[in-house]
């Protein structure tokens, strides 16, 4: 088999996918579900329920009113308890809707939702209707960035789309949420791809899957044997292949220019497999985004698993289902070990972007003491965006924002390759993130003045 990959940078990271053979298991429905109003990129959703209102599974509880926003639906059947602040990932508190489950009653779903398992691969809707349904279902990019999908599917004027790339790469170590979903729901994902191709008006699509998932590659090859316009592209295992720009480079050998250019400018839309599955559910079964697959894993977790869980469940409950927090835990991450964010409060609810919970042992998570830069240029070699991380970090430490901007700080995708390859354990990504924040602010100020 020939494995493609992206051309610039990237690193080999140990797989640690302990859950790759685990099937998706359901977890209990939570008694209280918490829905932060801002669980996507863009403006927070606006609540459209009052405390005391009865809601069913799939009832719209907050509307994404501005262009860049997404609807939020209740994942349980019960009563709206309050609209109050809830802890979020960065440690601050943000507004959220609390819903208490009605334990007496049998669970009731919104009548429009089709809960049958039968595959529905015929779709007679027009592209506009499909995008409308995606918007109503509140679907966002489930790979972790949470970009509203309906916005992505309406490319800017002048962009000629020709292909759809489905991202089944899952290059993050530990995580297997997408992998297990691909094995369990291949037919639905393929139906979802057809729906998306129709909505986007493209004739070709590709499913990028990394070589460490041979079973998924084989399964999709078998299912798509007779299909000419959907191609499975096996990819060499390399981090960060799941990055949008890296995947486009790996599959089609096209380079997306620097921001503000987006993949649509080179004729491509990239969607994660989990998003495609959610789109299938939304369009064919009228089912809004109320649950997702999440991997709960770690080196010494008792039962590392792939769970399908309702949104709004607390992270604590998910970890309990996997056997609780092991003694040696040093860090609990929301997301994978490369790009995930550490959590200091486990009452954080699971949101649309929660692809995994990784419990790293202290021996793995503790940082080594920082040493001087030895100019080995390993970070430069590892950077998939062709930047010079050591220089950017130095510019940030000196508050030299002009140099940082000139050296392309804003193109950084924060993949963390530089920091993980650095033999001197320098906190390169810390500096780069700080610098991106500062330079981003300066650019915004300048644009306002203009």
């Amino acid at each position, binding site marked *: 088999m020939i494995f493609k990959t992206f051309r610039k940078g990237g690193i080999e990271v140990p797989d640690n996918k302990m859950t790759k053979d685990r099937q998706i298991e359901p977890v209990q429905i939570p008694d209280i579900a918490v829905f932060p109003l801002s669980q996507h990129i863009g403006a927070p959703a606006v609540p459209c329920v009052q405390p005391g209102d009865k809601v069913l599974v799939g009832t719209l509880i907050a509307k994404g009113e501005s262009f860049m926003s997404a609807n939020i639906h209740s994942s349980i059947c019960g009563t709206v308890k309050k609209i109050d*602040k809830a802890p979020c*990932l*960065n*440690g*601050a*508190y943000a507004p959220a809707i609390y819903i208490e489950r009605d334990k007496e009653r049998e669970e009731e779903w919104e009548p429009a939702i089709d809960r049958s398992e039968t595959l529905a691969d015929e779709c007679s809707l027009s592209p506009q209707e499909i995008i409308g349904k995606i918007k109503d279902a509140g679907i966002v990019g489930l790979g972790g960035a949470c970009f509203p999908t309906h916005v992505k599917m309406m490319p800017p004027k002048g962009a000629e789309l020709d292909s759809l790339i489905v991202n089944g790469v899952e290059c993050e170590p530990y995580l297997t949420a997408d992998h297990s979903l691909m094995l369990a729901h291949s037919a639905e994902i393929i139906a979802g791809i057809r729906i998306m191709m129709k909505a986007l008006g493209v004739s070709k699509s590709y499913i990028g899957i990394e070589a460490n998932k041979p079973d998924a590659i084989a399964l999709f090859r078998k299912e798509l044997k007779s299909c000419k316009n959907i191609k499975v592209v096996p990819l060499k295992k390399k981090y960060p292949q799941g990055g949008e720009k890296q995947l486009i480079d790996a599959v089609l050998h096209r380079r997306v220019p620097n921001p503000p250019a987006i993949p649509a400018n080179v004729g491509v839309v990239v969607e994660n497999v989990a998003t495609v599955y959610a789109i299938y559910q939304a369009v064919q079964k009228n089912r809004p985004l109320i649950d997702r697959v999440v991997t709960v894993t770690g080196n010494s977790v008792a039962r590392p698993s792939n769970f399908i869980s309702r949104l709004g469940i607390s992270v604590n409950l998910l970890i309990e289902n996997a056997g609780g927090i092991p003694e040696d835990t040093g860090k609990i991450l929301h997301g994978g070990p490369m790009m995930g*964010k*550490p959590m*200091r*409060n486990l009452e954080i609810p699971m949101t649309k972007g929660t692809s995994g919970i990784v419990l790293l042992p202290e021996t793995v998570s*503790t*940082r080594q003491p920082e040493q001087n830069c030895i100019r080995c240029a390993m970070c430069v070699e590892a950077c998939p965006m062709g930047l010079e991380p050591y220089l950017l970090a130095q510019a940030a430490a000196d508050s030299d924002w002009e140099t940082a901007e000139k050296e392309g700080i804003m193109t950084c995708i924060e993949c963390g390759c530089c920091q993980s390859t650095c033999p001197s354990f320098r*906190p390169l990504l*810390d*500096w780069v*993130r*700080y610098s991106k*924040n500062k330079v981003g602010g300066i650019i915004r100020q300048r644009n306002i003045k203009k």
Partner: protein
Amino acid sequence: MSVIWISLIILAGVGLVTSVVLFVVSKFFVVEQDPRIGQIEKLLPGANCGGCGFPGCSAFAAAAVEKGSLQGMACNACSSEKLSAIAAVLGKEAVPVEPKVAVLRCNGTCSNRPAVAVYQGVRRCSVANIAGAGESMCSYGCFGFGDCAAACKFGAVTICPETGIATIDPCKCTGCGACATACPRGIISLMPKTKPDKRYWVACSNKEKGAIAKRSCAVACIGCGKCEKVCSFGAISVTDNLALIDPAKCFQCGKCLDECPTKAIQRYDIQNV
């Protein structure tokens, strides 16, 4: 003629020619600079703290001379005598500026605010603030990595190793405000120094509800409003679960200090200072 004579004559000749050139240049290419700029610069503290909004003391002096007055300009680090001396240089009379002092609106010491996490990133407040971290549950309080201490040109701000937060020495503080600008969480404020004897302020910036604030820090302002009620001068207002004392209205009666259930209100005596 001996070599010595020849060298002496050549040297004298070179000296003469250069002095003529220098004389001509200094006469025709002279840059007129107001002597007052130099005089004012000498009176300024020379710390180049940037608290006045100019890049440094000489820029401030140049701007003051160009304007011809100190209207709308202030050097927080100058005493009022110095300011009147500067005004005298400009031929004006100084309007007295209220001297200010910086206070930290946080008292989240190691014992008051237990750490729940370990931060291993770059030890700078501005970087830690992007990571959203900090080692405690409070997302408003002092990190204690010392961005303010690095910004202070007068040695007034230090990070106390025992408390783990910034300590501002009111004797050394000139009120230039450099620390307030450096703090990424904006929890250092300037308050007037002049009014007699004491100063009261709420040493907390947590805007969460009382229960959440209290859980993260023992001395957090829980927004109960007791101080607001007890204040006879209407100087205290509670917004977003956080009390704020208006120094202009405060008459230093100290009722609020006794009333506060979490001891979030602090005071220092200027006499001791």
